[in-house]
Structures are given as structure tokens and as C-alpha cells.
């Protein structure tokens, strides 16, 4: 075993390249970051664990976009609408920047040929994007911008010297061999963490970027807002929750589950699911609605059609599928509107970064996340491009070293031998983050022992439990999920109140003493502290 992946002497390096900016992740935020960095004149490489165009939560899905006409009245109304739900942790200055950038980026999409639907008077509806179409177009634009894309090239380790971050190393999935990119700046756009719950498109989202950032010394913010669960049919990956606004929920015997609903009634669904199955039927719809619902989200109907279920007239069993931080709002702490972390040369965007700045402690839908992805991606791309170009031509010749905290095997084998130990770690972590009684209805009694068990999994990993695992990508993913869960629960224990999506059964009220964002970080020893300088306190409510 060797501690680090990156080894200058190693002969197995299959690909080696220099760039000004390396983007890790090819979902919406990574794609926007790559395009904007390239527009600054930077040479950009984008690596994706899967395939830029299909990877991540957006591509197989459909998403609303927080697209608001840039008039002061409409922007004001948009900013106000979710502040209370988010526990007043968002920041108006950030919201306004994101609204403005989202407006111009969506209009760019239009000029690139995205087929927005027309309204009756010939104008365009630009508040919604169909995932496959959007991300196919983004890949095309990334290529057009002159960015080099390496698909199936997961990043496993950042490279660093005394000046800051200088690249990354990873693995080429097809061969198991190493790739290395030396770059003046690195943007982490690798998404959130949904703990392999099979929520639509989310199984590539295993918190990899959080671990990379924490190893570099960056903090995370808002990791207590990490307990999003989406309604889905029991058999299905399709986690589109909006349509359940028009559903009724039923017990096995056909009686209504009182108080259950897609928004505020989700806790009732969870409590009921703890002891019995729950069924849904979209029976609050009329015929006209049913027609346009199909056109709005074809992916929603796909599983039903294939199984011969009519969701408007048939009851079907549902579950709540964990979406973790993907639809939560926690992520890498960024210092400013350049999306800089505290580590020179390291940037974060999209779901990998905290979305509290525009959402506070709650997101109910994709529209804010989609706006955040395209805006923060653009901010990060522009800033990283400028930063790297200022470093000059020799930036790629720095003497960087790998900084991974989890040992890697030096034996390369892409096949799945000795994967049993990885499966065990994944199962053990899922057993801590999936149960409603630990993650959704939080209290010290359950959180504390859970965190202790997670700490012990982490200690085993640090002492080499996964060091012989030949599939280094899976080993790294399970380490990242373990670390993510520990940051989540450390923050959840620290926030002794209920705010946003973070619900404590032992502290049921929102408490003005906790009206700040929480930072966390560290690897073996996790340190959690309030973020200073909360900018806008006008919305404080006791």
C-alpha cells in the first residue's frame, strides 16, 4: 500500500497533461465553469467520473430554474419567498448575484439553441430545463469552447505545494491506470452526496469533492442541512417530487394517511413508513392537468408506463429515498463571489459548494439548485481562469505532491476482486445515514452513538482497511461517504435547535442564538464552529 496515488516515478501513468484550470465534475456547474474559464483564455481540462452530459442529478431528470425577470419588484419577491423556510440563513447579496447571472445564462442557453417552449403569445418559458437535452447541449458547448474532456476519469487526489493547489491525480476507469493533471487552479464541481441510494442520477454523487477539499484544508458549511429525502415509488429511482403535490397518501387498508403531503407532510409519511407501507395516487388532478403533466416530465411517467400502472387512478407503494446533500444545502465553504475556498487555487461550485447562501437551510426543489449550479459554475470558472493566467506559464512545473488522507493500493486492477470490504463499509455508512430515526428526526440520543460508529469506520479506513482494495475508485468513494456522514452528524449535534430541514426532536424550536451558518472540517478530528460575519440579520425570528 502507498499513502498517495500520485507518484512521479510511477510507470503506469497513462495520461499526463498541463492546464491552467482543471474542472472536476461534468454536471451543470462543471460545464459552466469550464466554458467560462475557457472564455477567459484559460486552457481547461474537465474530468468526469462518468460522462459529461449524462453524469449527475440533472442529466436524467428535469429541473425548474430560478429564472426571474430582472426588475427590482420581481427579484425582491423571489428572494423573499423562501427566506423563512430556509431559517434566514441565506444572503441577499448572493441571491441577487445568482438571480442576475442565472437570467443571463439561461438567455445564453436560448441563443445556443435550447428549445424552450413557447407561450400563447409567442414568448418563451425559460423556467424549466429538460435534463437530457440541457446536458447534451452543455457538452456540445464545452467542446466548442475548446475544453478537453476526459470522461470516465475520476479524480482521487489533489496535488499541492506551499503556494496552494496545483492539480489532481485520478484513475482512468477503463484501465485502472493513473492520470495526472497539473494545473494553476482546480474547481471542484463534483456534486453532493446521496450515499448510493439510487435516487435518480445520484449514484455518482458520493461526496468525493468534500473529501478532496477537506484534505486540502478547506472547510465545509451547512452540513447539518443534509437530510433531504425524496418521494419515489418503492420500485423506482425516479425521485421527482413536485407532482406529489396533487397526490393523496393511503394506508394499506385504503384509508387516508392524515396530514401526509409532499411538502410539510413529508414527516408524516416518514413516521408512517416506520411501521407500515404507504401508497400514493395522483388523484387531485383533473384531465387537463394529467395531459400537461406528461409533457412536463416524461421521466416521471416512464416507470409507471412500463409497469402498467396508471398513477392517476392506481395506488402504488412509495418510499422516501435519501438525497443527502444533493437536495440539502450543505457543502464546501466558499469565501466570496469568486467561489474561492480558503486554499489558494481551489474553487468550488454547484452542489459541491454550500447552497445556504441562496437557500439557507432548506431547498424543496431543483430550481434554486439549478440556478446555483449555472451561476456558481460561471463565477468559479471566471475567477479560476483569471487566477491561473496570472500565475503565468510556469505554474504547471511546480513541485506538487499528492495530499490524500486515505491509503491507496499500488496494485492496479479495475476489476472487482476484494470488493467485499468496500461493500461492508458502504453498508455500514448507509445504516447510519438512511434511517429516519437518526437522520430525519434528529436527537442527541441517536446522533451521538451514530457519530461514534462512523468515527470508528473512519479510523479503520485511515489505518488501511481499504488499502488493498484493487478498485481504488470504490475505495475512495466509500471513504468520502464516511467522511461526509461524520461532518453531517457533527454539525447536526452542534446545531441544538430546529431550523430549515434540520429537525431536532430534542430542540423543537428555532432559536435565535443559533442564527448563524456552521462551519465544519477536519479529518481525524472534526472541528465545528459558527461562521462569523452573518451579513443579513433582518429576518431574525425568535
Amino acid at each position, binding site marked *: 500500500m502507498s499513502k498517495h496515488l500520485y507518484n512521479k516515478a510511477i510507470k503506469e501513468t497513462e495520461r499526463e497533461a498541463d492546464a491552467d484550470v482543471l474542472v472536476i465534475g461534468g454536471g451543470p456547474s462543471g460545464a459552466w465553469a469550464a466554458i467560462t474559464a475557457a472564455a477567459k483564455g484559460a486552457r481547461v481540462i474537465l474530468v468526469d*467520473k*462518468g*460522462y459529461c*452530459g*449524462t*453524469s*449527475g442529478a440533472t*442529466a*436524467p431528470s*428535469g429541473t*425548474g430554474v430560478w429564472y426571474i425577470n430582472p426588475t427590482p419588484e420581481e427579484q425582491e419577491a423571489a428572494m423573499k*419567498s423562501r427566506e423563512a423556510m430556509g431559517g434566514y440563513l441565506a444572503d441577499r447579496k448572493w441571491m441577487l448575484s445568482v438571480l442576475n447571472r442565472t437570467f443571463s445564462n439561461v438567455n445564453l442557453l436560448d441563443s445556443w439553441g*435550447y*428549445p*424552450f*417552449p*413557447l*407561450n400563447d403569445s409567442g414568448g418563451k*418559458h425559460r*423556467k*424549466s*430545463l*429538460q435534463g*437530457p*437535452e*440541457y446536458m447534451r447541449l452543455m457538452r456540445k458547448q464545452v467542446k466548442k469552447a475548446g475544453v478537453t474532456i476526459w*470522461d*470516465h476519469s475520476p479524480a482521487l487526489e489533489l496535488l499541492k505545494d506551499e503556494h496552494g493547489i496545483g492539480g489532481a491525480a485520478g484513475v482512468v*476507469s477503463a484501465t485502472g491506470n493513473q492520470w495526472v493533471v497539473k494545473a494553476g487552479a482546480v474547481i471542484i464541481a463534483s456534486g453532493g452526496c446521496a450515499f448510493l441510494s*439510487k435516487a*435518480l*442520477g*445520484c*449514484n*455518482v454523487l458520493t461526496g468525493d469533492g468534500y473529501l478532496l477539499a477537506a484534505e486540502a484544508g478547506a472547510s465545509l458549511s451547512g452540513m447539518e442541512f443534509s437530510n433531504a429525502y425524496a418521494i419515489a415509488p418503492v*420500485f*423506482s*429511482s*425516479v425521485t421527482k417530487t*413536485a*407532482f406529489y*403535490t396533487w397526490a393523496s397518501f393511503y394506508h394499506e387498508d385504503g384509508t387516508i394517511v392524515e396530514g401526509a403531503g409532499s*411538502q*410539510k407532510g413529508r414527516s408524516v409519511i416518514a413516521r408512517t413508513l416506520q411501521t407500515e407501507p404507504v401508497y400514493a395516487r395522483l388523484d387531485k388532478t383533473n384531465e387537463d*392537468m394529467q395531459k*400537461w*403533466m406528461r*409533457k*412536463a*416530465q*416524461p*421521466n416521471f411517467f*416512464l*416507470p*409507471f*408506463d*412500463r*409497469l402498467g400502472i396508471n398513477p392517476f387512478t392506481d395506488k402504488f407503494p412509495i418510499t422516501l429515498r435519501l438525497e443527502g446533500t444533493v437536495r440539502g444545502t450543505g457543502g464546501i465553504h466558499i469565501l466570496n463571489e469568486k467561489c474561492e475556498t480558503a486554499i489558494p487555487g481551489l474553487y468550488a461550485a454547484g452542489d459541491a459548494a454550500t447552497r445556504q447562501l441562496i437557500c439557507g437551510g432548506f431547498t424543496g426543489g431543483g430550481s434554486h439548485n439549478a440556478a446555483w449550479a449555472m451561476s456558481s459554475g460561471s463565477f468559479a470558472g471566471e475567477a479560476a481562469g483569471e487566477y491561473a493566467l496570472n500565475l503565468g506559464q510556469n505554474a504547471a512545473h511546480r513541485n506538487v505532491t499528492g495530499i490524500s488522507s486515505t491509503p491507496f493500493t499500488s496494485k492496479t486492477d479495475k476489476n*472487482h476482486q476484494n470488493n467485499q470490504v468496500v461493500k461492508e463499509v458502504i453498508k455500514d455508512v448507509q445504516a447510519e445515514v438512511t434511517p429516519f430515526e437518526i437522520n430525519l428526526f434528529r436527537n442527541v440520543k441517536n446522533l451521538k452513538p451514530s457519530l461514534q460508529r462512523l468515527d470508528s469506520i473512519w479510523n479503520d479506513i485511515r489505518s488501511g482497511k481499504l488499502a488493498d482494495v484493487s478498485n481504488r475508485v470504490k475505495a475512495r468513494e466509500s471513504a468520502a461517504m464516511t467522511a461526509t456522514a461524520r461532518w453531517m452528524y457533527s454539525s447536526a449535534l452542534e446545531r441544538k435547535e430546529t431550523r430549515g430541514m434540520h429537525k431536532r426532536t430534542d430542540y423543537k424550536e428555532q432559536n435565535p442564538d443559533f442564527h448563524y451558518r456552521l462551519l465544519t472540517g477536519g479529518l481525524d478530528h472534526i472541528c465545528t464552529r459558527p461562521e462569523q460575519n452573518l451579513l443579513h440579520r433582518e429576518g431574525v425570528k425568535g
Partner: protein
Amino acid sequence: MIELISESKCISCGLCVSVCPTNVFEQKKGEVPVISRKDDCQTCFMCEVYCPVDAMYVSPNIEEEVIDENQIVQSGIMGSYRKELGWGKGRSSSAALDASYKMFRLMSKLPGH
């Protein structure tokens, strides 16, 4: 979960191998790809959407199931999602028909939205 690559339809273009975000397939040059890491399939339907000849079938079940290839082929279900999205020659993207705005309009009138 991915259940089928139809050997009679597949043209061995390898697109599914490329686009699969979780790297489920393996392909020997010129041959029909094989489903070699089925456990990693996340049921995202992307391979099916990208397959240019409707040779793939992703079952809506996230767990493995036994399917009858003949029955699936005859049912006309293969390629149905690609068609729904308006992808493929002679079709136009159904994103242009996206009626989500009607949903947003209704939702904005509900309490709490």
C-alpha cells in the same frame, strides 16, 4: 436496472459504454457490449436514451428482474423513452413541449409556495 442489450439490434457502436455514468458496460472491439457491472446500474435510463438503434432495455425496477427478451421486443417498449424525448432522426426535441410552466403557475397559487 439495465436488463438487455439486444444482439439482433445492436450495431456495436459503443455509445452506451461511453455515456453510462456508472461504467456498467464492457466492450471488446467490434463486439456487442456486455453488461459486466450490473450492480453499479443506477437506473437512470441514459444508455437507452442515447442508443441510436433502440437496442437497450432498462427495466423501471431498481432491483434485478427476470425479463423475456422476445416479449420486451414485441411490446414495442424498446426505444419508447428516446421517442418520448424526441431524440433520433426525423424527430424534434420534446423539450419544446415542456409544460412545466403550467405546474409552476398552479403551485404558486397553493398555500406555502
